[in-house]
């Protein structure tokens, strides 16, 4: 209980910039007719049905704040309080240790891919896939006969 109260002392979160982390989206492509050739950004991927992972970059926002040592190292704080016969306790209320947090901003980069599906005797089927927070994308290409 005391530790929880002591851990309550903290400064406000402040922005510490951002960075990009790789993120994967599973892609599954089927077609009518079956066995069509699939090209992802002009690179041959395989014949339908085919699946792969699309890689894009997700922006992560960093935040930091100062917290008490009770928040980050409660066991050691208690130990220091005991071993110092309580002398450490008032100083331990000063929020000086660094706590960080990361969360996605919802922004992505390098996340657009062109998908082309071709089959002999049919018109090519093309679409653009934009990767985002969704973990998977499933597509069914219906090719028109020439």
């Amino acid at each position, binding site marked *: 209980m005391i530790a929880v109260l002591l851990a309550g002392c903290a400064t406000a979160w402040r922005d510490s910039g951002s960075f990009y982390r790789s993120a994967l989206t599973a892609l599954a492509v089927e077609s009518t007719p079956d066995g069509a050739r699939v090209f992802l950004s002009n690179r041959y991927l395989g014949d339908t049905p085919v699946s792969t*992972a699309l890689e894009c970059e997700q922006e992560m926002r960093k935040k930091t704040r100062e917290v008490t*040592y009770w928040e*980050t190292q409660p066991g*050691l704080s208690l130990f*220091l309080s005991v071993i110092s016969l309580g002398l450490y306790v008032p100083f331990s209320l000063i929020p000086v*240790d660094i706590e960080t947090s990361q969360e996605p901003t919802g922004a992505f980069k390098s996340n657009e891919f062109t998908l082309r599906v071709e089959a002999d005797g049919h018109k090519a089927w093309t679409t653009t896939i934009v990767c985002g927070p969704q973990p998977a994308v499933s597509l069914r290409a219906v090719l028109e006969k020439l």
Partner: protein
Amino acid sequence: MRRTAGTLWISVFLGLALSGCGAVSHEATMLGNFVPDPGSRVEVGTVTNATGQAPKVDDEVVNIEQLLSDALAEKLRREDLLWAGNPSRKLVLVTKIVEYEPGDAFKRWLLPGWGSTVVSVESELRDANQLVGTVRARRTVSFGGVYTIGAWRTIFASVADDVVSELRAKIRK
């Protein structure tokens, strides 16, 4: 008896104050169904500074990318995981330093937590340029005295140790 107990308290306190300590966290995740081939080796790929700052120690800019790159290579070598051009399967470890605070040993000595040295890294394991796994590790040195003076540098060896221990657990010999 009282004197012995007092000596013990002081010894423990001094031991902690001299040696220093902090928080450690690390985890590795293999993506999909990827299982590294036994005997795979790891090449240290690019290490980038994603902190948005050029950290300074004693008014000199520190090349933290090089410090971490060297530390990773050394730890991989010790674990017999470093790729050295041999025909074994090669995985590439691409790393970002996402947080770094050089800290201050004098502040740590005055008040635990103050002047903490912090490093946080995110590594991607790539097989033929395909992302197959991630390793995240964070280390702090937040308490201690004289032996933590060089923590701004030695923390890279510690965090590299954490990353490589995670890889060792995933890649069988």
